[in-house]
């Protein structure tokens, strides 16, 4: 809800369905806005542009795009509803917000799919032009919901015929009515920009830049934007505007970034820090594809990309690239990672560096391709034949994904092993402000391709890391063979010797477990002992941290740990858990980390789980903790 800092005239107070009109420019601390419309309505674009405006105004932000699996589900259907939620605030926030304060519904289906989430007393902006009889029917309403006074009276409703207003505004442009229809999202953007006192000019510049290649469309969108903005001003549609003051940030240079872009940039940075070219090889899959898109643009940054014929070839070529001395990288999501399983095992036994980015989505099978979930931890840990341990890192936030990509590459090259980097649909598409690092501040880890045959054997290991040397084809005097058959512990020749096999399995295990020596301290919110320790991993970080903040303000003895190194686990974790009366493991799955912790530490931890393709809300976590104690 829009929490007004004045505390007096808040239009969105729970339990006060009759809106009180605040004065213009009322300061509010934070707002959650959700744009919802048909997947063809451009809601993602609108949301992104509105996010930029908030960022530019210095607000802290967190976004949650939520789109359908079908590119164009039947227009007007519930299945085709696309949403974009933005939380912007003058204080530090970690989540896109539990429930919107403001909902923009561009059609009946969008209204139906989203109104249940809107705060009671929240602001509801409806594009009445789309509420035609057929559209109402397509959304599955029996009668026009605009006539449902019993429901609408719970909200501050604004009925605006955006279709008509846009049509009128674009009358002179000579565009077809279909083309005009495509501009209506910019009207909504304009209206919201006015409501939150955003400067119009940067937005207009943005739109023009965005449609540089199609200036006529750009101009039309600007007209629609201005129409919306001015409509707010002159029609006094909201009777008020609001101001969310800038949040306080550490000084520095900032930008917005989504998780997938951060991973891609992280790989570019990793290549430079490793002083080694990066070869990315993959196959399109939701929600990982954009990592591939971004990297394909970075050809002048030492990155080569290869679109393989399938997921298996995707990792195959990445392994081949690593064999050839580059940093091989592949990215996929659950179904694709399943296909890559055998090849991951190959990379593990031949002990080559490889980064496998797994952007999780709802499963099993094709599951919920566009929805977030954390149900591939088991797959990452166990999804291969034989004893095949490898390091797993889970990004906590979109910006953390940048650093995780670097960390994954560092481990892969230092320990000569494939590394799985877990992200998820929420991190991949969600955005947050990122304080840009200075490249010079990032620690380099130049890789070594051994060229000196003196004393070398293909499987001779570094005493400390247990890693074998990286000898690249082309190196004189060191030609040797590797492969998926078990190999002699020193020569690397095929070996069926029983003792040698056990020895090799143990050595590969020891090498991976030894990685935990590199770990720093835990990043714990709260004390290192107390009543409840909330443990999470991956993209739930924001919701858990925010919930713990709320609980602690309430005087509860709750701490939070978000695990980043999923395997091997931090050896100190067992002792840490003993310091708490209760351990609550919160995951968007049926209890995967929970099982791992219970089996590794014999700890009586409890799980709090959700499988709805949606992130946790702060309220859910608070309730779960309250119920536990």
């Amino acid at each position, binding site marked *: 809800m829009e929490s007004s800092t004045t505390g007096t005239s808040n239009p969105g107070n729970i339990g006060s369905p009759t809106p009180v009109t605040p004065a213009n420019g009322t300061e509010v601390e934070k707002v959650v806005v959700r744009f919802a419309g048909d997947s063809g309505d451009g809601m993602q674009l609108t949301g992104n542009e509105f996010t930029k405006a908030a960022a530019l105004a210095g607000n802290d932000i967190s976004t949650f795009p939520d789109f359908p699996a079908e590119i164009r589900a039947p227009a007007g259907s519930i299945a085709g509803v696309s949403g974009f939620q933005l939380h912007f605030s003058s204080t530090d926030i970690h989540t896109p917000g539990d429930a919107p304060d403001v909902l923009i519904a561009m059609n009946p289906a969008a209204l139906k799919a989203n109104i249940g989430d809107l705060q009671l007393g929240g602001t509801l902006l409806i594009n009445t032009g789309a509420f035609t009889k057929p559209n109402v029917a397509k959304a599955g309403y029996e009668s026009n919901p605009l006539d449902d006074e019993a429901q609408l009276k719970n909200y501050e409703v604004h009925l605006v015929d955006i279709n008509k207003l846009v049509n009128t505004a674009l009358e002179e442009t000579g565009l077809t009515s279909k083309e005009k229809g495509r501009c209506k999202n910019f009207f909504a953007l304009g209206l919201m920009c006015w409501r939150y006192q955003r400067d119009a000019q940067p937005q207009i510049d943005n739109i023009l830049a965005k449609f540089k290649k199609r200036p006529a469309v750009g101009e039309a969108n600007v007209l629609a934007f201005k129409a919306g903005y001015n409509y707010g001003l002159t029609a006094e549609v909201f009777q008020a505007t609001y101001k969310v003051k800038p949040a306080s940030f550490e000084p520095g240079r900032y930008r917005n970034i989504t998780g997938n872009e951060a991973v891609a940039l992280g790989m570019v940075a990793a290549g430079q820090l490793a002083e080694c070219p990066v070869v990315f090889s993959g196959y399109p899959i939701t929600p990982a594809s954009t990592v591939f898109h971004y990297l394909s643009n*970075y050809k002048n940054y030492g990155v080569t990309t290869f679109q393989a014929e399938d997921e298996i070839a995707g990792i195959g070529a990445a392994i081949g690239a690593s064999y050839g001395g580059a940093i091989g990288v592949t990215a996929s999501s659950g179904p694709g990672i399943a296909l890559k399983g055998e090849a991951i095992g190959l990379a593990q036994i031949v002990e080559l560096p490889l980064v496998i980015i797994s952007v999780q989505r709802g499963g099993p099978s094709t599951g919920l391709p566009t929805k977030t979930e954390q149900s591939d931890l088991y797959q990452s840990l166990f999804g291969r034949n034989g004893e095949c341990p490898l390091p797993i890192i889970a990004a906590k936030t979109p910006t953390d994904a940048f650093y995780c990509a670097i960390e994954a590459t560092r481990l892969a090259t230092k320990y000569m092993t494939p590394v799985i980097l877990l992200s998820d649909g929420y991190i991949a598409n969600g955005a947050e402000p990122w304080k840009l690092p200075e490249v010079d501040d990032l620690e380099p880890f130049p890789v070594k391709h051994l060229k000196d045959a003196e004393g070398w054997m293909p499987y001779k290991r570094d005493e400390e890391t247990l890693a074998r040397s990286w000898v690249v084809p082309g*190196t004189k005097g060191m030609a040797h063979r590797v492969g998926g058959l078990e190999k002699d512990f020193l020569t690397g020749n095929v070996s069926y010797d029983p003792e040698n096999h056990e020895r090799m399995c143990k050595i590969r295990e020891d090498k991976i477990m030894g990685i935990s020596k590199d770990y720093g301290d835990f990043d714990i919110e709260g004390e290192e002992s107390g009543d409840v320790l909330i443990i999470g991993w991956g993209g739930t970080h924001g919701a858990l941290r925010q919930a713990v903040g709320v609980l602690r303000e309430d005087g509860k003895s709750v701490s939070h740990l978000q695990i980043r190194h999923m395997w091997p686990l931090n050896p100190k974790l067992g002792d840490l858990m003993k310091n708490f009366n209760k351990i609550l493991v919160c995951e968007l799955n049926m209890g995967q980390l929970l099982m791992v912790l219970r089996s590794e530490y014999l700890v009586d931890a409890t799980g709090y789980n959700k499988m709805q393709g949606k992130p946790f809300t702060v309220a859910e976590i608070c309730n779960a903790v309250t119920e536990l104690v």
Partner: protein
Amino acid sequence: MTEKQTRRDFVSDQEVRWCPGCGDYAILAAVQKCLADTGATPENSVFISGIGCSSRFPYYMKTYGFHSIHGRAPSIASGLKLSNPDLDVWVITGDGDALSIGGNHILHALRRNVDLNIILFNNKIYGLTKGQYSPTSSEGTKSPTTPFGSVDYPINPFSLALGSGATFFARAIDVDAKSLGPILQAAKAHKGTSLIEVTQNCPIFNDGVWDAVTNRKTATSNQLRLEEGKPLLFEGGQKGIRLGEGLTPEIVEVGEGKASESELLVHKADGSDAYHAMLASMAAPEFPQPLGILKQVARPSYDELALAQVDQVLKERGKGDLNALLSSGMTWTVGPDGRPE
């Protein structure tokens, strides 16, 4: 190289473990000789294989080698070529490995024309798993999984290559070192994917499956030795292939009072699609089996094009500056007071 290299320079210290009499021995020797004859170096030669009898090949080569997983060697080889384009990369595969489990990869390697030399050991059987029929087995092949005879239609590697846009396809007999050698050399010199189908005998599970082609007694009538620019003649020049009705190959007797040589088709490795399709349709014993370089055309290789594109982008945009990349798009600065400037 000061001293002339020999085959021995490419023999590894590993004991060769194929069955006695296996056709693989001859192919191994021919490849080792090819490397020696062409001045290849152990360090710049890489052999990548999948799974199957033939895929043990890399262990026996004193070069770099990667014995990978079933069917996937072409993808690993493609990645290697992208990261290290100067290497001479060979893929060793069999009919099961390349045409069944790895069918997708060979198709796309050929289509892209990655600069690889792929040797397909075609023995029309799964040897390593003990004798099941393969995708190149003739209909009716009896095997442990088809005790009553296989019912599925075999794939023709040359047809697959043609359909995939291959730029080089050759066929040779395992033990025929005299023709296999030059073919391997031509394949090695070819820029792009070279696919060499070697008719390989598996004396254990499929002995004599290529007899119709390889039997010395019938060789002259069952082998069509293709020579660039020469008419399609066989049986010591007594028979030839002429274009028959409906673009089909037709066997004719050649000589006085019979067909003249000028009526015969002339072999051109870069001939028309129709010509290549005709060659693909010819198999012993109905026709003499075409042997030699069936197709060779020039087309830039994938690795060449991909790396040229990287160079082009570098030329146009200059070497990327990471700091600039990180701060691309919309950025803003927060001042010492914690507020945007």
